[in-house]
């Protein structure tokens, strides 16, 4: 409600100013998260939450709130959501036997709606055997190689994206809830350091755009807080689903920096830290962005 008041006030100011120059940039002047509500088939999603006590952000917003209405609409109905083609593929893969052990995911995990509920919301999660936090992709491949005796999937393969989308969907609507204490603390700190480190020829850190300037336009792009509660996300730019690490990599290349390795410790730490900045937002997998 507060936001709505601000927006209409801004609109009046623009209208009152009546200057050609202001009018030309009216869309810019009104930039910020919009007030729309994300409701899919009667299910309400939390797209804003107050930032945690130690958070530099007052209100945490889902990236959905920064998209235009045409893009937003694609996520309002699962029939319009292009990410669901992959979800269906993932559902088929779930019960497809693969590997020397002659097992499918379903052989051990049965109904994903039960067994995978809440999994996405807690990723990356500490894994005692590995001695480090694992992302959803790592966890899936661990299961494939260790339990199914199957080949690991490539990080950005259609199979992996379909499976992370299908598993992620089982947590849709649940609040992001990653652990950052205990053995995770060192990884959280590492991720935080990466988040605030300026890199590349453009000498920018994640925080430059996503903490200090979210809501503003950077050319035709509306800067969000870079939340990752909707991954894997369907991006119209990609014309398919993409992973969190792919998005990180793209951002780093944009600022002319050598990206960290997809699936490596740095991006895993960054994924943990960025996820923690979105604690409480609903999981939106598979989200739609541009």
């Amino acid at each position, binding site marked *: 409600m507060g936001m709505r008041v601000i927006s209409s006030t801004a609109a009046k100011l623009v209208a009152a100013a009546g200057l050609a120059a202001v009018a030309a*940039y009216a869309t*810019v002047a009104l930039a910020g998260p919009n007030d729309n509500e994300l409701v899919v088939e009667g299910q309400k999603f939390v797209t804003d939450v107050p930032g945690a006590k130690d958070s530099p952000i007052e209100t945490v917003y889902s990236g959905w709130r920064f998209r235009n209405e045409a893009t937003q609409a694609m996520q309002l109905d699962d029939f319009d959501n292009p990410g669901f083609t992959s979800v269906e593929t993932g559902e088929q893969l779930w019960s497809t036997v693969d590997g020397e052990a002659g097992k499918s995911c379903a052989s051990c995990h049965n109904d994903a709606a039960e067994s995978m509920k809440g999994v996405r919301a807690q990723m990356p999660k500490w894994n005692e055997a590995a001695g480090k936090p694992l992302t959803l992709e790592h966890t899936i491949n661990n299961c494939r190689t260790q339990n199914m005796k199957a080949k690991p999937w490539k990080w950005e393969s259609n199979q992996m994206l379909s499976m992370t989308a299908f598993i992620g969907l089982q947590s849709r609507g649940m609040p992001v809830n990653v652990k950052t204490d205990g053995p995770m603390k060192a990884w959280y700190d590492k991720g935080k350091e990466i988040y605030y*480190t300026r*890199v590349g020829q*453009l000498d920018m850190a994640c925080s430059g755009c996503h903490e200090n300037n979210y809501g503003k*336009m950077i*050319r035709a792009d509306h800067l969000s807080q870079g939340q990752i509660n909707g991954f894997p996300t369907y991006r119209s730019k990609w014309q398919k689903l993409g992973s969190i690490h792919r998005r990180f990599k793209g951002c780093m290349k944009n600022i002319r920096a050598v990206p960290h390795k997809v699936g490596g410790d740095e991006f895993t730490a960054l994924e943990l830290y960025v996820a923690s900045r979105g604690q409480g937002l609903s999981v939106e997998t598979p989200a739609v962005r541009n």
Partner: protein
Amino acid sequence: MERVLCAAAACLFAMGLVTQDVSAGPVAPADVKISEDGEIKTSLTGSAGSAVKGREWFKNRKLGNCLACHVNSELKQEQFHGEVGPSLDGVADRWSEAQLRAIVVNSKIIFGEETMMPAFYRDSGFTRPLKKFKGKTILSAEQVEDIVAYLQTLKE
């Protein structure tokens, strides 16, 4: 043989045919002189830039890409102006040529470490620069001067 060449070179020096400044090109990024009050008073190339060319570099997404972050009404036919930085309308009324040059070369000279604006004429000190940009500046000295010339036309 070597001795002969050396002698010949010394001779040329003596005759004033070879000056100390053999590579009379643009000043290197590390050699740019910044005054105490944060200005770069002399052209990086030794001559004035072209505002017409500067306008092109300004909007080129692989060069200045200035519209990514700044509104500039003089280019209003170009779609989508960013708003991360301040509007550049009338920027020449607010900053001198020497200040504008410093801001383009390395805005941290004037705005401090916190600014998000990249340094356009700096070739070292970066963390993890992509290989193809390593040891390189975003703009050439000539392009910096062209953009500075263009910015000086932005008056209100």
